[in-house]
């Protein structure tokens, strides 16, 4: 039983490592920031996920100690990964895309980051750099 659990843990760790490496390699290899965004949001999810499952299997079946923290980590990763992706994408849209290059939402509206309410956003109107203290 323990031996079986250890084999499963080893396999999961290898899978996790491979996907983590592929995610990082994608970050290097893909041509521009928008496509680079795809590699870490996905490959990292499964990579981290298999390491977490490995940790759980190890703790339950090898150490005999039930643990729930891994489920929480997975939950928070699934909640935060899309939000990080969204914010990086928005920042990138402002920094290196012209809004005319993006598809229109509908004939009469614009995307939220370019809309009227976004005029006050610190990202659109870059504030003066703070005075340097000598």
């Amino acid at each position, binding site marked *: 039983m323990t031996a079986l659990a250890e084999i499963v843990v080893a396999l999961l760790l290898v899978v996790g490592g491979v*996907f983590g490496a*592929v*995610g990082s*390699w*994608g970050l290097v*290899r*893909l*041509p*521009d920031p*928008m*496509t680079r*965004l*795809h*590699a870490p*949001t*996905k*490959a990292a*999810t*499964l*990579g981290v*996920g298999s390491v977490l499952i490995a940790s759980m299997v190890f703790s339950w079946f090898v150490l005999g100690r039930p*643990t*729930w*923290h891994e*489920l*929480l980590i997975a*939950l928070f990763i*699934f*909640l935060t*990964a*899309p*939000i990080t*992706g*969204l914010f990086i*994408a*928005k920042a990138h*849209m402002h920094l290196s895309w012209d809004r005319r290059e*993006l*598809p*229109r*939402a*509908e004939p009469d*509206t*614009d*995307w*939220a*980051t370019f*809309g*009227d*309410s976004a005029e006050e956003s610190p990202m659109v109107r870059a504030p003066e750099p703070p005075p340097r203290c000598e």
Partner: protein
Amino acid sequence: MTRPAPPGPAPTRPAATPAAPHRHGAHHPAPHRAASLMRRILPHPGVSLIVALVWMMLVNRFAWGSLVFAVVLGVVVPVMTAPYWPDRAGFRSPGRIAGYIGIVLIDIAKANIAVARIVLFMPKRDLRPCWLTVPLDLTSPEAITVLAGTITLTPGTVSCDLSEDGRALLVHCLHAPDPDAVLDEIKTRYESRLKEIFR
């Protein structure tokens, strides 16, 4: 998705003020008052349950003291955050949530393998990244948030923005030789299911 926080305390919904239609209903105001009180103490019963559950998982070992504290947190946190979330997320058929999570988990695994193959084996010149406008049939902010999160976590797509009127999502595809097929998959595979789950 991003909803501005109301400045004051939570506006009570019409359902919470039962005074008007029950002029002479002095016989049975009690259930209404009890419902209104319950709404004030437990503005989001689902959130309360999840907060308590997360606390118990964080403690990682069952103890009655932790359970008491979990219940206290489950009551206090939703009450304190209620002004920022005045409406309840309305569910039509919450029983389908588990099925949806299952589908998304399987798709995440598939997405990882698909993206890994693109990263490792596809020559750069064959890559066809594109922007995509996804018109939304969903209206509730909670449902749109779930859909945007799902799009980011699944095959070769990242949701980038919401239109000002909240009726379209801007999605970036890593490799989409046929953008209409991607759009079709998002609409039929995820949005139609979310439409059944959320009101």
